């Protein structure tokens, strides 16, 4: 489970990136967070990963305060960034092997890696190719394979569908659904309303660091998410 309680981040220059943010992502749930650029989505993920300290409030991963036990909390979370750039001179196997070992998993075989790579839809002939030759979609898939093989109960994704072609985007969403069905908590920051609508169990809108709307899939039934998004953004502007 992922949780924030009054999570706040104010930078030294006075910019309030996250403002008293409180939400939960339950096991077996996909939570999609929308917001314009600079709304605080990526900052929230950075706070979960303890890349920056919060000014106030708490971020919890499986109930562990990430600022108090940053290393232990990372055992329970996987991260997929917007533009997965791995070690270009390494093949998919080598990248996977390295990050798997960093995640503390030992004794996995090449067959295990192959299974993970196949599960994200990476072509078998790419397994031994240097990742610098991969397309963005292939790199995203490899990033997801790293997250899958870590097998953490929580997944943080920072705009994972950005720049992907429709097929790759859809494949990625299918994988996230699969992960949710395995009982994982999935938090995804995105601009991709169309795709997110298909899989989100709950959506939140962020604006100027604040969570301005939170709706369940049920509450969204019959609603036009795009219109709702525009409406919320404009309302708060006023």
């Amino acid at each position, binding site marked *: 489970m992922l949780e924030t309680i009054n999570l706040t981040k104010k930078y030294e220059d006075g910019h309030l990136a996250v403002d008293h943010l409180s939400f939960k992502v339950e096991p077996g749930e996909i939570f999609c967070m929308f917001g314009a650029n600079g709304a605080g989505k990526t900052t929230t993920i950075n706070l979960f990963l303890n890349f920056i300290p919060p000014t106030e409030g708490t971020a919890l991963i499986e109930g562990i305060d990430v600022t108090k036990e940053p290393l232990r909390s*990372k055992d329970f979370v996987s*991260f997929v960034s917007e533009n997965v*750039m791995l070690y270009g001179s*390494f093949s998919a196997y080598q990248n996977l092997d390295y990050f798997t070992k960093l995640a503390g998993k030992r004794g996995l075989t090449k067959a295990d890696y192959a299974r993970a790579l196949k599960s994200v839809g990476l072509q078998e002939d790419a397994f031994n190719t240097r990742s610098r030759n991969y397309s963005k979609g292939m790199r995203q898939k490899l990033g997801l394979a790293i997250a899958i093989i870590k097998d953490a109960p929580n997944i943080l994704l920072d705009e994972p569908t950005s720049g992907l072609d429709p097929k790759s985007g859809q494949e990625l969403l299918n994988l996230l659904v699969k992960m949710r069905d395995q009982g994982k908590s999935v938090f995804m920051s995105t601009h991709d309303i169309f795709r997110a609508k298909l899989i989100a169990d709950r959506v939140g809108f962020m604006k100027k660091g604040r969570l301005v709307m939170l709706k369940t899939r049920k509450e969204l039934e019959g609603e036009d998410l795009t219109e709702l998004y525009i409406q919320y953004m404009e309302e708060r502007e006023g």
Partner: protein
Amino acid sequence: MLKDIIKKEILETITSPKFVFTFLLCAVLILLSVYTGITTYRSEQKEYNAAVALNKKNLESQQSYQALAGLGPKINKPPHVLSTIASGVSEAVGRVASVNIAYDPNLVDSKYESNPVFSVFGALDLTFIVKIVLSLFAILFTYDAIVGEKERGTLKLTLSNRVPRDRLIMGKVVGGYISLLIPLIIPLILSMLILLVYPNVSLTGQDWGRLLLMFLMFFLYLSVFFTLGLLVSARTNKSSTSFLVLLFIWVVFVTIIPKVSVLAASQLNPIPSVHEITAKKDAFLQQVQGGAQKKVLDWVKENAPNAAKDQKKYQEDFKKFLEDYQNDLTSKIDENNAALERDYQARKTSQERLAINISRISPASALMFSTMSLARTGLDDHEQFLASIRAYKPSFTRWVNSRMMKSINFSTGEQGKVNLADMPLHKFEPESLSKSLARTLPDFGVMIVLIIIFFAGAYASFLKYDVR
């Protein structure tokens, strides 16, 4: 985990095109430099042996002690086997000095004198390759070590796992350093093998000790630029910025500080020119020679009545007077010249020391000074050799004066044959390894202090590094 990080660093580097390029270039340059160093050393050795033999022959062929006193022995500086690694100033300073009664000996006939074009380009020895080429490679290997991972996003991905930052930076340091040393160590081992098996090139136990210390200095020098690269990489947000900053620091360290230090020392501690000293010596010589004529005439005038009484005794007394007087004059000239030279050398040494100490803040200078001292191709070795020749001159002068006076037959004007059997020989005891090591300790100290500062800076910066 540390092992995994180290392994990844090595693997990532050695599979990169920059490593292949670095390795090939290092291998070619290092092997070429050692090979040319060996061939140069061997030809210098041959030249030295030929010059020593020719000098002996020339001395033996002199018809009189007077001619021998004018010619004097030529002292050639033997080449040192470690000049194959660090040629130092050996090609810029003179290699041969004439010892005669007229002038103060000085080492002349440097390689650069005969081939000035070489002084423009300098020698391509191993020290040069490490100082210029490998230090640039150290920068090339580290400028993006941290900031590059940030740009690629791999730093975020790495630290989203249970990876302590201190372990990650340690892994980067160890793995990166091993990767950097591979292109150096393999050609170095091959070079040592060449030195071992090459005919007529033999290294003593002390030489091997000196060589190992030189290699240690190379590793420390590269560590300075390696840790500096990490520090700058951990203090910047763009790899292009990191590279430019490092390039600027490299230029300052390698070219600007050494040159500025010489200028600064000459301004802070000015010394008279060589011409001024020579003019002072000549003035004293003229003064003494002017007085000498009068003194001889006075003696002749005073003792003329005795010549009529006992011609033979008169001649003996005259010979004795001339020998004593000649020795006295030579001693006076030598003493005056030595005093002038001592003063000049002391001031020159003080200026050189100042320049050296100022430039030591640059690791490139510290590398040069230490390797030259260890290879015995530095200024100190040159000065010690010259001092040994100057110390030899009075004993030769005394000997040749004494033989010259004894061999002259004043009634016939004939001079006796030259016999070199008891001629004093020049001896030079090179500096011991322990003394050379003591001389290089400040350079080792500079390197270690810089490494500690840069590493501590990189370590502390990375612990607080903004990975976003």
